């Protein structure tokens, strides 16, 4: 007797959306167990993780603030994965976007001209897109896989950022802190809800959802991407170019991540620092999968992930738990999701080990 996975005749109906919900529920149980193991009251900790952070207007604004870069990065990642292009370097594109936008801010924000902020955003998006164009070039010209190149470029980008804020761009009046000077007000994104830190960038994120959905479902370009991802052979036969899919999805994802990067720097942070992201670019990979590679799903998943970040900070303060708890719960979430998806297509069955009998023909 052994346990065996038997394929179902048809995938369980509704499981595509049930399995993320199940994964969230199981992760909450896992988190409770984790809290209990660390000697905290699980109910109090869960409350601090999931409820307290959004019990006020300010909390909700912070939720939107943290969900914004996740949505922007994840929409790009999801469109790529649909075409079987794995961009896991959103963190680096985010960073380069922040750097390029900052270059514009440091150069021109003293002019007070109206175009400074739009130019910063454009430079951020262009910088992120250019950074992602490098792996696109390496993949299409040299066949080097983007999983490793995008990731290596993230490390390079983060060191570049370190060099800039320790070197050429360091604020001379900043008491030797590794950071640029504060941006002037004209170079900061306007705040959406007075009294909170939620900026215009949330609008970009909200726009990226219908636009991304439209691209994937309503356009020929999106159809081609999905065919390239699902059936490369058929795509080749139909004349849909794989290189075209790489060149379309990587710079698009990079541009969105770059926009998220400059929005973070020209928003809640207000200057360039050595650390400008708590790992949004990596968490966005989880968000993309949790959201079923679908922009609307991504929006929901990003809100959940943002809640985990906020809750993690809350736990650190109220329960003296290390911030790393967030990463553990994020990882659990993705594990449960992947396992749930597997069960959608398979069921567990107890199988009697058959006796192998050789029969005469």
């Amino acid at each position, binding site marked *: 007797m052994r346990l065996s*996975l038997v*394929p179902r005749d048809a995938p369980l109906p509704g499981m595509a959306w049930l399995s993320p919900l199940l994964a969230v529920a199981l992760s909450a149980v896992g988190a409770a167990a984790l809290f209990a193991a660390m000697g905290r009251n699980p109910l109090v900790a869960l409350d601090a993780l999931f409820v307290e952070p959004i019990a006020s207007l300010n909390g909700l604004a912070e939720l939107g603030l943290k969900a914004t870069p996740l949505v922007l990065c994840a929409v790009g990642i999801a469109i790529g994965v649909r075409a079987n292009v*794995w961009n*896991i370097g959103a963190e680096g594109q985010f960073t380069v976007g922040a750097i390029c936008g900052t270059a514009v801010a440091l150069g021109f924000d003293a002019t007070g001209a109206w175009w400074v902020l739009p130019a910063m955003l454009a430079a951020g998006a262009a910088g992120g897109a250019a950074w992602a164009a490098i792996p696109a070039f*390496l993949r299409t*010209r*040299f*066949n*080097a*896989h983007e*999983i*490793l*190149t995008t*990731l*290596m*470029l993230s*490390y*390079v980008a983060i*060191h*570049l950022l*370190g*060099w800039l804020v*320790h*070197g050429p761009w360091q604020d001379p009046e900043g008491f030797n802190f590794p950071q640029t000077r504060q941006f002037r007000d004209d170079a900061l994104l306007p705040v959406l809800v007075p009294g909170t830190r939620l900026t215009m960038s949330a609008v970009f994120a909200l726009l990226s959802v219908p636009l991304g959905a439209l691209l994937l479902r309503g356009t020929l370009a999106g159809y081609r991407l999905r065919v390239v991802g699902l059936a490369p052979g058929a795509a080749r036969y139909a004349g849909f170019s794989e290189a075209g899919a790489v060149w379309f999805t990587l710079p698009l994802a990079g541009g969105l991540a770059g926009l998220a990067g400059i929005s973070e720097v020209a928003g809640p942070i207000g200057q360039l620092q050595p650390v400008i992201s708590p790992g949004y670019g*990596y*968490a966005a*990979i*989880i968000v993309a*999968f949790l959201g079923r590679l679908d922009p609307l799903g991504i929006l929901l998943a990003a809100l959940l992930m943002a809640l985990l970040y906020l809750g993690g900070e809350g736990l650190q303060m109220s329960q003296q738990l*290390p*911030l*790393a*708890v*967030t*990463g*553990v*719960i*994020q*990882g*659990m979430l*993705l*594990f449960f999701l*992947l*396992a749930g*998806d*597997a*069960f959608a297509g*398979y069921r567990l069955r107890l199988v009697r080990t058959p006796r192998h009998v050789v029969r005469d023909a």
Partner: protein
Amino acid sequence: MPERLPDAVAVLAVLVATLRAATPLIIAGMGELVAEKSGVLNLGQEGMMLVGAAVGFIAAATTGNAAAGLLAAMAAGAAMALLFGVLTLTLTANQVATGLALTIFGTGLSALIGVNFVGTPIPGLATVLWPGLAHASPLWQQLLLLDPLVWLSLLLPPAVQWFLYRTRAGLIVRAVGESHDVAHALGYSVPRIRYLTTVFGGAMSGLAGAYLSLAYTPMWVENMVAGRGWIALALVVFSTWKPGWLALGAWLFGFITIAQFEAEAAGISVSPNLLATLPYLATIVVLVLISHDAVALRLNAPAALGKPFRPTV
């Protein structure tokens, strides 16, 4: 670098430092190479190494026994790999996504369990083995820095080469990686073999992580693996799945890492931040060099790499 060394010792010091920097890459890379030869692509190297580094450090710091640290790290890496195996081999989840999840999970888990050990001083592995190290002559100091794990990194490539190409078990591993359906039809249990190679890979990654936290820089810091897991993965591709080439690649990387420190010590005024990008840029260059010959890559890569095995019978 310590004060002026005699030239011969200085050369030896660079050599020793290169071997030491390459050690975690070779150990983790060999584990991944064997797993990939059986068709399993585990992108969770970074996460497994981090958990290995943290668990190894904690075990060594609390028991005061370095060997216990190394064993605990291997067990932790193997346990992480087992989790990966359950998801990808039993539940046939996507290997790429699961590997990424393993890295994200391992990064968080290692930071969580290691939080109380940041800044705890422990003696390095070489000092544990040779308590008189600090008083030895410069020449002996260098030689004694070659701890057992460095020697293991020299022995592993020929051992793995022998196992894969000279033993029956190695042949089966390669068969499973080339065509799981054929191996299944021949009566081999594809999942069992892949579980074994995956867990071996995890144990090696855990050990490589513990080398970093117990010997290379004897301390625990969040995220201290710093991309070496990913570099090890890139090296497997670079080597076209050949153990000897993997070792060569790792030494090249070790040398680049050391050159970065040497340049600083020699007073070459390049920002340390810019120098720190070198290993990552080198990885990209190496990947490009090896990948541009698509035919050679396809001929050498295990044909069933990353593909889930779903038996029909």
